[in-house]
């Protein structure tokens, strides 16, 4: 009796899966390939995990690159570092540069860690103020005061003095910040901590900080949504997001004194003149170039120097695929970045990244080419 019913249900499920299998085997390209190289035209599979900020770029690069399947999970920079350290993926991706503790945990796999800067992105100060569609100028001090809760209305003296030509309403300022741990927060607070001593001591910098005021929203989408729903709101939103959704954002004063809008060029300019340490762990903090947009963030791909020796799950085949992926990303991949509103590395850093990528090995042989 029941056996019949259960059998019927199981049969239905099996039928559905069977149909799907038949349907897919004709239309999908490569199915269950594990990292083994097939016959000619070998397609290797590389796995990566980490930064959510970098995810759209790596997905796109993977999609544009023939012959390599890249499975990338946007689980966050911290989880990405854990993943590469525990060898659950072939490469990790992180926005902040590696801390000494991270370097040590990755080095435990038997090969020193290598972090390669891949591209840059700006963090915009987006706001919702009908009547002020453009032209808002803010400097580090005012921004810090706003996010500390000291400046409460849009027509406050501080903002007025920077924007004499704008008519500013008396609307209350609603601060919106990220409620989840994020590299975007780290980049934004990193800038504020550099230019605003009180912000540095009261709030500090990092992926999660104790915001003294404002609403928390989850993800760029959450912050964007919150800004759009509240008149008078101001928050920090990733550049790609702000540009693609046509947000209103302010120009920010950089170290040289110029008020700069977050464009792709000003973001790349932010990378110029940055001191590049030996391990390539750059951190863009209030850059000095006159054309630079000051709130800019970098992102890295993190691997062991000798990936096969370290024991990546994908093995040799993944190492080859990784080589192709890095070469593409630092080559042609840079030129398509602008299509999705991400910024290229400036030439100086790009050269160093390429050199580092060329140095990645698999059991002694370079993985490139």
């Amino acid at each position, binding site marked *: 009796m029941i056996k019949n019913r259960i059998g019927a249900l199981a049969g239905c499920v099996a039928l559905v899966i069977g149909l799907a299998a038949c349907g897919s085997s004709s239309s999908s390209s490569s199915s269950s390939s594990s990292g083994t190289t097939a016959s000619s035209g070998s397609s290797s599979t590389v796995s990566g995990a980490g930064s*959510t900020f970098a995810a759209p770029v790596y997905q796109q690069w993977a999609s544009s690159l023939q012959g390599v399947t890249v499975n990338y999970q946007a*689980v*966050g*920079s*911290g*989880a990405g*570092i*854990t993943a590469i350290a525990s060898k659950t993926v072939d490469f990790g991706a992180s926005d902040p540069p590696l*801390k000494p*503790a*991270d370097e040590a945990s990755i080095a435990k796999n038997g090969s020193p860690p290598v972090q390669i800067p891949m591209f840059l992105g700006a963090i915009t100060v987006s706001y919702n103020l009908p009547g002020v569609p453009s032209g808002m100028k803010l400097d580090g001090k005012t921004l810090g005061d706003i996010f500390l809760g000291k400046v409460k209305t849009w027509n406050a003296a501080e903002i007025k003095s920077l924007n004499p030509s704008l008519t500013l309403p008396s609307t209350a300022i609603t601060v919106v910040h990220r*409620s*989840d*741990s*994020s*590299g975007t927060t780290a980049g934004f607070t990193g800038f504020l901590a550099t230019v605003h001593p009180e912000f540095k001591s009261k709030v*500090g*910098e*990092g*992926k*999660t*900080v*104790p*915001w003294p005021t404002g*609403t*928390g*929203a*989850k993800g760029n989408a*959450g912050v964007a*949504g*919150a800004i759009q*729903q*509240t008149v008078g709101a101001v928050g920090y939103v990733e550049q790609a997001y702000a540009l693609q959704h046509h947000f209103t954002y302010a120009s920010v004063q950089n170290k040289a004194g110029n008020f700069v809008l977050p464009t792709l060029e000003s973001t790349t300019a932010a990378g110029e003149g940055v001191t590049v340490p030996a391990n390539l762990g750059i951190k863009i903090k209030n850059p000095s170039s006159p054309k630079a947009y000051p709130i800019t963030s970098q992102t890295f791909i993190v691997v062991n120097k000798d990936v096969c020796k370290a024991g990546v799950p994908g093995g040799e085949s993944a190492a080859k695929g990784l080589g192709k992926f890095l070469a593409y990303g630092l080559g042609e991949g840079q030129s398509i970045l602008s299509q999705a509103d991400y910024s290229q590395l400036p030439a100086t850093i790009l050269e160093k990244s390429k050199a580092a990528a060329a140095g990645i090995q698999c059991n002694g042989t370079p993985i490139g080419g």
Partner: protein
Amino acid sequence: MEGASLRGGGRSVLERSPLARLPDRALRYGLTALAAAILALIVYFFVRLVGEAAPAFERMGVFGFTFGSEWNVNAEHFGALPLLVGTLITSALALLIGVPVAVAAAIYATELCPVRLRGALTLLVELLAAVPSVVYGLWGIFFLAPKLQPAEQWIAGKLSFIPFIGGGTVTIPNYFITGLVLAIMILPIVSAISREVIATVPTDQKEAALALGATRWEMIRTAVLPFSRAGIVGGAMLGLGRALGETIAVTILIGNAPRLSHHLFEQGYSLAAVIANEFGEATGLHRNALFAAGLVLFVLTLLVNGVARALVLRAASGRNRAGSGEAGARLAETVAGA
């Protein structure tokens, strides 16, 4: 009796050979072993997680962690009180709003609803269970929260003399909207189990009440509900478990402010949400602290479940002592007292 065979060809238990008893014993031992294995798995689960959480407890002390009032990641100072309070507030809200509505829907579906509509109604309520938690969070924050904000502001303003409910600043993500969406999320499970339980009340008990002249509602109140109480509580406990442990939806709706807010319409944080939010970026002690938060949640679930069980046991034994005669006596009182 010896030698007698029963109708249908079965032999009496006394006559059954040891071989024939084998399937029974195999079943008994097999199932017992399985239950033991599951218990072992649960213990292992607990032990592993305690292991991951230990460094945080070492640093902050068990009480220091659980009741510490500041959750500061950068300073590596982890106190879970705001998280604990947030979890309690939102889960309590979820139960307060969700359980009565769910039980009412269950009663309606089984007792009052026209038979033709019964299947459709059941399906509709269970459809709520089909919605993924991330969709609940997004729908809540992008659709529901902005719509309710004016009403929330009005309540906070007009009722500001009532502590906790009134006063404070009204933010879009807040305790209330989280509790409300959680209530919606637990509706299907509480309702479905209550419905199953209510449907099993013996018809003769219900008909007896009606025959004695009870109105529909009185019949439900005296014949159906007391009988179903334990099962309904079981369903509510499952709903509570869901509410306590819900991660993604809460993290979108509660605002994730590691503060102990004193107002219903302000942001807060919860134990489950902090894990979802921060795990992706956490390393070292921070990660241990997140596991420790998970452990605090287990203990909380344990305590709440324990209390619920004790309440149900007491109610059940009370009813047993008085016997089913008590229900009848109460009913007769009602009818006569009219």
